[in-house]
């Protein structure tokens, strides 16, 4: 995992052996807590914050 803080540009080494390299952009929800049978109305209480992920 390579963190890239806001306002900076990350440097990612290209995997030179691959012939089919893709990226996926992800919405990351960082959870502070969890559980089971959480009602949908309370689900977002468990989210600490959001981030953008590049996979």
């Amino acid at each position: 995992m390579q963190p890239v803080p806001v306002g900076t540009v990350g440097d990612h080494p290209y995997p030179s052996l691959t012939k089919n390299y893709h990226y996926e952009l992800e919405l990351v929800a960082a959870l502070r807590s969890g559980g089971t049978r959480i009602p949908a109305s309370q689900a977002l209480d468990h989210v600490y914050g959001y981030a953008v992920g590049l996979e």
Partner: protein
Amino acid sequence: MRGSRQRVVLRAPGANRPAPQNRRTDTPVSPAAPRRRAGRRDAPPEVAGLHAVERVRRHPRHGPGRWAGRLAVRWQRSTLRPSPAARGSPSGLGRSSRRPRIRLAGVADRGRIRDASVVHRRRQRGGRHAEHGDRGRRRGHAKTFGIDPRRGGRRSAADRRMRQHGGWAVAGSPFTVATVTLPIAGSTQVFPVRRIYCIGRNYAAHSREMGRTRHASRRSFSRSRRTPCSRCRWAPSAIIRIRH
């Protein structure tokens, strides 16, 4: 029952069972060999006679596991009685180390102990009993193992020793794992990352789009349509991937 409290001796589980009978002839099966349950181990010779804590340090197998409760009882016993070696048994494997009689460290009454043993068996059986009736189980557990939560937790000598030796971690963990953290925008703190759950509601379309070649290896992918993973029940067609 408060007035009838007394010291009691618990026998090893199964000791009070009736002797097995031959169903056809109604005669006792002989000899009545003690039944050994799977998972129960006597101390191997190289660690017999050592103190329980030291035994665990040398043999991680003796650490807590599915049989942790039973081991706890046996440890307690070992704090109260001299080990076979200390009693002069030349082999170090005295009779009592094979068939332990379990003496409780605390004071309890008969009814509670019987209840506790039932709960304990259920707990060992696992499944839903392991989760339900938590309060009752804990009280039974506490009574059995001399841990009284109302008195502020563990008080037995065995537990004190385990704490002094650093607890279970000493027995089990061969290495430590560094915590992965991410910076938090607008804060000097960092976010501790534990697991990464990857959820893709459009995985099927994505897979088609990619010509179904990219995720040919399924090792890290759980893509059952019903239960993506054992821990999560997700809506059908959702895909989840867990990276630890």
